[in-house]
């Protein structure tokens, strides 16, 4: 069981302004897919949730957004931390979740197991927040799509081999599909469902 100090501490020192600045970072991140954003506001969630992932939770989650957690996050102080600071409840159902959090090097389920939205309401899909080893230095992928002039390189380190396959399948069901926030420590990078990824030719 998590200690009280873990659950009640570690939220934004200045909740309103911090949430506004992280919201701005996320908005810009989704407007410029693949761009790395250093978050200006700090949070220290219970391990193993990362700092940027914690800031995303504090900014976007609330009572109306059920959250799915990986088994190891579920066993940590994270569910209580999220519940206390955001009001969001943890759900075991991936399709009910509006947000899903995955800690570093954890296995994550196929994107199609989460809510993909409907043709009428594609916005009702899950947003996944996945912690990776680093946002640079990994296998180079070419990203194209809205918000990207011509093309850009995404070289995230610590994503499984199967990621590209998952993402291509996600891209194929547009306008439905999940959106991704990849986090590493205090940085994040957004991949909206509109972004097309392919292996960069050597």
């Amino acid at each position: 069981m998590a200690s009280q100090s873990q659950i009640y501490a570690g939220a934004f020192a200045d909740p309103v302004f911090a949430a506004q600045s992280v919201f701005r970072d996320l908005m810009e991140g989704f407007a410029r897919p693949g761009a790395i954003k250093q978050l200006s506001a700090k949070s220290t969630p219970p391990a193993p949730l990362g700092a940027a992932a914690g800031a995303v939770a504090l900014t976007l989650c609330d009572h109306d957004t059920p959250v799915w957690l990986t088994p190891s996050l579920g066993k940590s102080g994270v569910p209580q931390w999220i519940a206390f600071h955001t009001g969001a409840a943890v759900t075991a159902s991936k399709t009910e979740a509006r947000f899903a959090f995955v800690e570093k090097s954890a296995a994550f389920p196929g994107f199609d197991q989460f809510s993909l939205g409907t043709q009428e309401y594609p916005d009702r899909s899950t947003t996944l927040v996945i912690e990776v080893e680093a946002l640079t230095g990994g296998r180079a992928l070419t990203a194209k799509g809205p918000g990207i002039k011509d093309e850009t390189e995404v070289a995230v380190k610590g994503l499984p081999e199967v990621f590209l396959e998952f993402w291509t399948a996600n891209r194929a069901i547009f306008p439905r599909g999940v959106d991704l926030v990849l986090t590493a420590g205090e940085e994040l990078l957004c991949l909206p469902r509109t972004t097309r990824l392919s292996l960069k030719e050597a």
Partner: protein
Amino acid sequence: MMDAKLKQESPPDPARKKAMGLLARATLDELNAAWEALADKPDVHPVRGPETGLVMVRGRIGGGGDPFNLGEATVSRATIRLSSGEIGHGQLLGADRQRARLAAIFDALAQREDDRANVDALLQQVADRLALEERRNAEETAATRVDFFTMVRGDD
């Protein structure tokens, strides 16, 4: 709608539940007076709030059937930590954040052996006032009780 069921920090605590209910109904004057009366005022650190938000109030269809959403009510809440480590929560109807903060402080103080008596005195005062008000309202209502009697129609 899913339930926000979490691992319980402590088993349901009837005494604390009752105390929090009374603190929610304590007036600002009662809370301030009890605070002023404390010989040793603790250091209080904010954890969450004080903040005002909404709670969706639910009713039941037919009074006892399945629930439905009736409408919202303003709620103010605060969570504080005393320097001795106790965490206190205060939450009450209305937009008075000062009352919520003081209620949280007394919820935390109630967990300290040394302050228990002070908190109990405040709770007793609030409980007595509420009982008096309730009694008075019930008596005023009782005075408006009627016994209708049916007139016999027609000739006998």
